[in-house]
């Protein structure tokens, strides 16, 4: 049997081949796009942050001008996080405001320098970081060392006499924990 393509004029044959080449390129690009988009979405996707409130205790159990470490199971956890989901915050009751409402300062334990856990020393009224020696005053402001700012402040509220803190994510310089101001 004769080769059937030989019966088709050369020009048509070329056109058909060119069309098929372009079709193949187009189809490959489409395949890459429909495969690539969801893969990139999967690998680099970020879940929407949910807002959770954690009760750290009754508001009146915190003595005025006293700093205490409160630990809780962070609700931002995954089910398989184990003890790494335990989170600590330093709670300081700074006394009532003009309306008589108790006011708090709540700090993440992470140093604002590189995230190491700071310790509270009530004797000297300082937070000290074991890594590079960053130090902070009781109000969280930077006292000395390499940190570029004060401790990260958590958002808090008092609901029916109970002090609640908004579950903190891991804080970094450009992703702090709140509007960084005390609620009115």
């Amino acid at each position, binding site marked *: 049997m004769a080769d059937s393509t030989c019966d088709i004029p050369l020009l048509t044959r070329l056109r058909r081949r060119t069309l098929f080449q372009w079709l193949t390129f187009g189809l490959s690009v489409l395949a890459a796009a429909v495969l690539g988009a969801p893969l990139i979405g999967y*690998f*680099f996707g*970020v*879940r929407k*942050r949910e807002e959770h409130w954690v009760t750290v205790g009754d508001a009146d159990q915190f003595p005025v001008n006293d700093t205490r*470490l409160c*630990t809780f199971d*962070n609700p*931002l*956890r*995954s089910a*398989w*996080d*184990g*003890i*790494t*989901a*335990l*989170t*600590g915050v330093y709670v300081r009751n700074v006394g009532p405001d003009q309306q008589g409402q108790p006011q708090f300062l709540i700090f993440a*334990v*992470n140093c604002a*320098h*590189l*995230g*190491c*856990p700071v*310790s509270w*020393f009530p*004797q*000297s*009224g*300082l937070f*000290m*970081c*074991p*890594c*590079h*020696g960053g*130090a902070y*005053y009781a109000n969280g402001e*930077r*006292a*000395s*060392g*390499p940190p*570029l700012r004060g401790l990260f402040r958590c958002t808090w509220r008092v609901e029916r006499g109970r002090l609640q803190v908004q579950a903190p*994510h*891991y804080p*970094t*310089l*450009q*992703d702090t924990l709140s509007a960084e101001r005390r609620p009115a």
Partner: protein
Amino acid sequence: MIRTLRTVGAWLEARLCLGTSLWPMLTHPVPKSVAGPMGWWYVFGSASLTMLILQILTGIGLALVYVPAADKAYDSLLFLNYEQPLGWFLRALHYYAGSGMVVLLLVHVAQVFLHGAYKYPRELTWLVGVLLLVLTMGMFFTGQILRWDPDAYWGLAVGGSMAGRVPVLGPRIVETMFGGPIIGGNALSRFFTLHVFVIPGLLLAFLAVHLWLVIKKGISAPPQPGQLVDPKTYDAVYEQELRGGVPFLGEAILKDLFFSALAVIVVVALAAVLGPKGPSAPPDPTLSGANPRPEWPFLWLFGLLSLSPAWAETFIILVFPVVLILALLSVPFVSNRGERAPSKRPVAVLAVVVLFTIFCTLTYQGVTAPWSPEMIAWSGQPVPERIVRESSPRQLQGALVFQNKNCRNCHALEGAGGRRGPDLTLVGVRLTADQLIDQVSNGTPGGGNMPAYASQIGPDEMTALVDFLTSLRPAGRPAVGVPASRTLATDRP
């Protein structure tokens, strides 16, 4: 029997064609002098490869037991250490063979650099080699995270804080790195994936290219002073040299085998004697007293960061590593011709000596970490008795203030205590009472290394503290800068 084997061999060979592909590769000629004493310089690359093979073997072994889940990883490590037969040995070997691989790679890089072996036509071999070094460091960092103890947890925290400084994209990178808003199971899974799939895949792919280039472009002959590399003539000269060469699979490989065997025995002995590293404690972020330290290949960076001024920090974190890698990559483009002999390249020799001195010095600083406060010194290190034997009651009170205000965490007395600030054993010789009051009250000017204690210390405490500090001087020596008449007044106001 032999006939059957021969038939099977011939059947396989007819299909695999190894006799005409792999065999010539393995027996390719190498310069004759490599089989001589100079050949000992060539053993570090193959020994690194041997360490990599050990890492793959022990890694597969560990993966049989290790559970890469945040709530189980620590327990599975304890199981490996104490219950799985020889699990402790495999963990130890994985650590020491990994360390050995880094050491051998550094020596290999230094040797290739000193012998000018990166010059024409082996520029690409060097480039791929640099990538292999970077990937190996990546293996070390991700491997440390899998040890899922406080060092691993806080190592992730420090890594996240560093990545968080990237302009604009920082928060996004941190969240991608941790796989969520907090450090936990998702972060561990990600670092497990990097350590077990992604980086080894890249490592093996680049290693294949590296070895392919070693075979295709050949290994460089030991350098001779006066024998210049000229890309125009090099290939012909090299080909001439290979005519009188020796097969790689023969005399040349013996030294590699000898040294690799020695390296294996050394890491096995280290593993058997020193045992597995950690895990030091459960990865509980609320445990107090955490004092995270990076693994040894990163201690120099820890040291460099800690000793740098604050304004340079973000640069050192984000830009410096890139600059360093680019500098290494640019080496064959800066000079790919001319002399190869170290005796004719004093700048190259000096560069290696200086770089390794800096590396070792910074690593030593990283080990001792004098910039880190000693967090329990205030309660754990008593004031030396010799210092307070003759003290007045108020000076004794001052010594108590000194301890209770945690001064000791940063200031040593007779060498015991923190070293972030100066040792104060003889501070009375250096500073007057007024200067001490100023220093303690206001701290380092401009918010430097010492906090201001003005609001943390009462007037009585300050008086006692300064009285104690000014008394810290050799017997019979008056307080500094104070006339004798006032010395009495300061001592007994």
